[in-house]
């Protein structure tokens, strides 16, 4: 029996890592729900409204995306379309080559879309120095690691590990004080912001009505990445478009509350184009790369609602499986309950057939989702698809189960044979027995009692 990938990964995980992930994801759950309760008189209504707006977006992309493109162009933002990861990489590299043909530094603000298309590697291969400027992403980069959480990329690390990495990189004297570590990174990164000719960011929302790119952050590195260099390239999944500016208050508060337990993020950027003629600073060029990479295929299938996602990470934080296994266990850029659906939805269930099984279906992901994505329902559908296509080998022979479950006589016969179970060998049984004692018949038998009364 093949051990499912998430289980396999979690078994080799250091206790220290499990503890980092667990404590950090537990820690802010209450703060997040409190922030949302303060932000909204009717949180339930707000979530429903947000879900409906996102569904409207998903149903109206053929209108909204051209509107976004037009409004962006009127604002002086150049719009590029990328069908898949390689065309996105190609487009971005072309922009970089035009802006800095001799290579040089590129500063990057945190972006999952660029993780998805594996952009850094491609740019480095082509002679650029790519510097992640989000503190967490910076640590990931110097450790040659990958983010294990979409909002808090180094949730799997503790401060001692970060301190050692900074010492190794020569950022300053060894310290475990978080504020001192932050200052060391800040000092180092400030130089990079000055040098860089190109800044690359993600997009939290893009407003079709106004052609504005909206970014949220807490560290200020997005502001520097998008304003200090001459060229700003923003990369967005095509589902990130919102119809109107009036949608922003709802989504900004839902995102801040769900992601970090804040009423509002420290910075909100609304980028309306490059530097105007009378302006002293800001980028000379702004490019928006709109990425499909499997999304339009997802739109027409059973996993469409996963594209409502605003990448708040709340489902990761509450997921009991994520807390035990960490994000890296999902073997995908997107981890946790979101990743278990979005990964196979984008890349095909054939590539990640057992990911959907890494869930107790407890439903806490759906309960906290600000856009009410029915994640458990989609995990069940993914399991069904994987089973129907014969992609996973079942531990329990369900056809045998059907023989028993479709006849009262055969079922009762099966129950009579149950005492023999402890001597039988079966992978499901050994799986259960590895850490738990098998259940035994306790007290009276129901059927005997029932028959005895009448």
């Amino acid at each position, binding site marked *: 029996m093949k051990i499912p990938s998430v289980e396999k990964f979690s078994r080799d995980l250091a206790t220290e890592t499990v503890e980092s992930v667990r404590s950090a994801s537990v820690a802010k759950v209450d703060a997040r729900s409190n922030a949302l309760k303060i932000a909204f008189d009717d949180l339930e209504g707000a979530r429903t409204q947000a879900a409906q707006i996102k569904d409207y977006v998903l149903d109206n992309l053929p209108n909204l995306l051209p509107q976004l493109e037009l409004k962006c162009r009127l604002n002086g933002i150049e719009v590029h379309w990328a069908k898949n990861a390689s065309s996105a990489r190609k487009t971005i590299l072309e922009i970089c080559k035009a802006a800095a043909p001799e290579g040089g530094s590129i500063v990057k603000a945190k972006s999952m879309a660029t993780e998805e298309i594996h952009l850094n590697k491609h740019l480095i291969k082509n002679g650029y120095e790519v510097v992640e400027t989000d503190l967490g992403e910076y640590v990931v980069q110097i450790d040659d690691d990958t983010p294990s959480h979409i909002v808090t990329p180094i949730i799997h690390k503790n401060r001692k590990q970060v301190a050692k990495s900074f010492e190794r990189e020569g950022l300053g004297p060894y310290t475990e004080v978080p504020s001192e570590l932050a200052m060391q990174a800040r000092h180092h990164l400030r130089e990079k912001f000055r040098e860089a000719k190109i800044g690359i960011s993600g997009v939290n929302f893009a407003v079709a009505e106004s052609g504005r790119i909206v970014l949220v952050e807490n560290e200020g590195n997005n502001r520097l990445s998008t304003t200090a260099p001459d060229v700003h390239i923003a990369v967005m999944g095509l589902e990130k478009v919102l119809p109107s500016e009036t949608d922003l208050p709802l989504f900004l508060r839902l995102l801040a509350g769900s992601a970090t337990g804040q009423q509002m993020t420290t910075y909100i950027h609304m980028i309306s184009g490059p530097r105007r003629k009378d302006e002293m600073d800001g980028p000379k060029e702004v490019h928006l790369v709109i990425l499909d990479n499997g999304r339009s295929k997802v739109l027409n299938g059973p996993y469409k609602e996963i594209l409502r996602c605003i990448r708040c990470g709340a489902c990761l934080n509450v997921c*009991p499986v994520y807390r035990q296994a960490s994000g890296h266990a999902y073997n995908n850029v997107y981890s946790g309950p979101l990743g278990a659906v979005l990964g196979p939805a984008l890349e095909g269930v054939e590539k990640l057939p057992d990911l959907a099984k890494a869930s107790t279906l407890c439903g806490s992901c759906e309960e906290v989702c600000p856009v009410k994505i029915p994640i458990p329902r989609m995990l069940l559908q993914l399991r069904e698809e994987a089973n129907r296509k014969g992609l996973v080998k079942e531990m329990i022979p369900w056809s045998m189960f059907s023989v028993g479950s479709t006849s009262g006589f055969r079922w009762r016969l099966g*129950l009579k044979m149950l005492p023999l179970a402890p001597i039988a060998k079966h992978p499901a049984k050994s799986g259960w027995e590895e850490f738990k004692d098998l259940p035994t018949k306790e007290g009276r038998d129901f059927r005997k009692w029932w028959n005895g009364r009448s």
Partner: protein
Amino acid sequence: MRIRTYARYDAEVSRSASNISQTEPMTTGAPKPKVRLMLTCLCDAFFGEVGIATVRVLEHAGCTVVFDKDQTCCGQPPFNSGDWTAARLAAGHLMRTTLIHKDTVVTPSASCAAMVREGYPMLYTDMAHPEIFELGEYLVQHLKIETWPITAKKMPAKTKVAFHSSCHGRGIGLKGEQRQLLASLPWVELVPFDQGEQCCGFGGAFSANHPSISAGIGMEKLKNILESGADEIVGGDMGCLMQLNGLIKRNKLKIKTRHFSQLLAEGIGE
């Protein structure tokens, strides 16, 4: 009408409907609500006492209980594993034996109730949510029992209870009915514990194919419960309690588990 509704989903429905054996207890006096018990496979196989307590509780609440002996399983195990063909076969059988009748169906498991209410409409996309109630939900919402009527002559021993609200209970919209009934028992002291709403880690086949993660989640739950000083863990789903009990026994922890119906039954007396 019901027969015709379900017949669409399973050709055998009407043919087998007459084969159902049933035993009905004596009824006296005023008409009693007739309740059809959905025992659940776990209570059938391992936890007969929970089935017995459920019947006693329903009868104490004034119901006439009917049990269909040909009943098997709701089909959730194959459903959650992705084998929806096997799930439909089991679901069809439950419809034939139990759901086909006009009576109210009650089950001592929010998980099985969730399967029938939410899972069946996924198996049969044109099916409305079938009516089935979890025991606590039925007692409080439908029979309007707010405080459990105690008739036992001797008060059971005092007990500190850590109440585990199952995820599927929240999933079908339970609003603390089981807890409310437990709180009305004078010998029960409900003790709060950290992260009370967290999953037990069972997840059906998940507990066998992701055993280390499943045990990790369960031990986390048990750690929080043990810190509360509870004597026992009481819940409304034997799946959760079977998971926790397997860990308790393996790790020789000093706490026991019971279904909430067993505590209610204690209050009835002999």
